């Protein structure tokens, strides 16, 4: 019988966990807020952005959402603050700030 994994959380007793912690769903990594690990934070200066989109594909955590050819604000739930996007930006539109 398949367990509804969305009902499992950190309070679930061991008897109700899945065998071997098997996941019965796809794309569940989005529920894992890796943004909590961040020690440096990218800040987006929209007024300097030319929408060249060099930043989005180099993000290792897919934390720069692109909609209809335009990038939006950072997904801080998953951005780990690595700074690759800031290095890739030719226009200084991404600034790294210390802290979260």
């Amino acid at each position, binding site marked *: 019988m*398949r367990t509804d994994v969305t009902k499992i959380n*950190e309070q*679930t*007793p*061991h*008897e109700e*966990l899945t*065998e*071997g*912690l*098997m*996941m*019965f*769903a*796809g794309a*569940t990594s989005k529920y894992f807020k890796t943004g909590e690990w961040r020690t440096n934070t990218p800040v987006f200066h929209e007024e300097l952005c030319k929408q060249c989109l060099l930043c989005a594909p180099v993000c290792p955590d897919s934390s720069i959402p692109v909609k209809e050819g335009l990038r939006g604000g950072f997904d801080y739930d998953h951005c780990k603050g690595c700074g690759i996007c800031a290095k890739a930006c030719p226009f200084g539109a991404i600034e790294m700030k210390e802290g979260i």
Partner: protein
Amino acid sequence: MAIRERMSGNEAVAYAIRQVNPDVMPAFPITPSTEIPQMVSTYIANGEMDTEFIPVESEHSSMSAAIGAQAAGARSLTATSSAGLALMWEELLLAASNRLPLVLTLVNRTLSGPININCDHSDGMGARDTGWIQIYAENNQEAYDNFIQAYPIAEHPSVHLPVMVCQDGFITSHAVENIELLEDGKVKSFVGEYEPEEFLLNPGKPIAVGPYAVSNYVMEAKKNQEIALENAKAVILDVAEKFAAVSGRHYGLFEEYRTQDADFIMLIIGSAAGTAKQAVDELREEGYKAGVLKLRVFRPFPAKEIAQALKNCKMVAIMDRCESYNGNGGPLGSEVTAGLFRYKVMIGAVNYIYGLAGRDFTVEDAKEVFAEMENAMIAGTQPEQYRYIGLRSQEADE
């Protein structure tokens, strides 16, 4: 009608593999288990079975491939010995924690060093805490029978754990003895088809196997795995009962040989149990109450059952074919005495190390152990613990 044959232990296991005809077998050769994948590939080449054989570059890969195939939904197995098992170390734990019911036929050989190819149990015992079920055989017949029972145990819904089927290198794997085989049809219907409920290659029903778990989940997952291992005890007995109905051969967690009224019992694993039984038969002729407890299932460890079986004897000799370098005895010695203490069975117990790297263990050796127990009992002393049998020493008693 059963088929009467003569075979080595490796031949017997390869024959059983042909009869079960699993889906995938990745393997890398290592003495003394090399013959098993070699014979299986011959069966495949001759069209006698259709298992997908994967020649891999190491045992790290053979166990990884077996895990991948099993997770994908294929009944898988591999074979190895000694350093091969050591190289699988990381994957052994994954096979168990991912709850994959695959089977490993282990032909026990010592671990280096000194490098040596002969039998002792240091490989299997080294993997004793990896979460695998471990079943040891005394002879070729048991190696064959244990393999046939392995998948029904592993795949049972209350278990879902990998099984290691162990036999003694060369002594069992290469010695040819009489054997009684089951017909192909009987084996196939006993083992059945593998129909996993969840598996990776299952269109429309996605799963992820072995995901990262944060600290809030790991203890619960391990507890569940431990419960499955405990469940395996009843399943092993149930499968043994069903196997007896098909084969006429009876198995338990251990075999009690002439222990009923025994004052002194030798607790031993594997081929040397045959030697111990011969010693017991000779001692019984002399009116001496000796018995053998041959441990078949080492994992899950039947501590309670062993304590129960030993409670009426005066003293037990616990025989380890493995040095564990804990400074206090062998692995079996440590676990049996812990079990006796927990269940408050306060009999005498003495731990011996024997037969390392193929060193002979003779009927005379076994009889001497019994004599030492009796002498200690008469003198009211405890024999010296944790001693090597057959060791050349300046302090030898002769």
